[in-house]
């Protein structure tokens, strides 16, 4: 099952650093995550980037494989 990784404020909003979803596309996974975690998570997701296997999501229609890692990337602040 594809995994969703959540960092920083996204992790706080969901209460989890990772979770799994029965989803066939990235868009579907994100819809399920919004309904599973609620409004605050949905708001954080609005201002975040979504990566699949370490790179920017090309399209919400991207088909997921069982080992795929989708990540919610809030605005970054390294350094």
């Amino acid at each position, binding site marked *: 099952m594809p995994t969703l990784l959540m*960092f920083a404020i996204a992790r706080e909003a969901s209460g989890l650093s990772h979770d799994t979803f029965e989803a066939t596309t990235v868009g579907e996974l994100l819809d399920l995550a919004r309904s599973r975690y609620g409004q605050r998570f949905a708001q954080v997701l609005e201002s975040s980037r979504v*990566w699949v296997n*370490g790179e920017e999501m090309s399209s919400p229609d991207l088909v997921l494989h069982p080992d795929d890692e989708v990540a919610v990337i809030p*605005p970054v*602040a390294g*350094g």
Partner: protein
Amino acid sequence: MTAGDRPTSASWCLVSESLPEVAEAVAWATTPDTGALVTFTGTVRDYAPGYAAVTAITYEAFEAAAVDRLEAIAAAAREAWPQVNRIALWHRTGEVALGEASVQVVVSTPHRVDAFVIARFCIDVIKSTLPVWKYEHTGEESGWSMTGTEATSVEEAVQAWLDTHQERS
């Protein structure tokens, strides 16, 4: 870390709760054809937008992706400046106290101008691409950094940097 742990490749990228001393990177980067070596150290400062009297920062990272991106940044630097000798790019995770190093860039080249430019390139691209987040600790209101930027891909950030820094050699 002992000398035996130093990489044999020309790049040394780390994302870790504990980093080696910068002297380790300096020794590693000083190859026989090195005439210039620049080190940049980012340290935890006592203020940030929205926060006063910062005492520490906790850095959270998407570690696997962050290491991949540091490797990609070092490779992009080598492509833009093939004359570069060695590049070390290190980022700390976990709680980093006031005054301690959070990020370290070490670049060695035959000549000084390139070393300064490449080190600047590396830290600038790190800032806009690395999946790392800051939680600022203060005596009162602690919280996530308010100065985050949307993470761009390394390719986009490299191109944007090169487009705006025409002085590159």
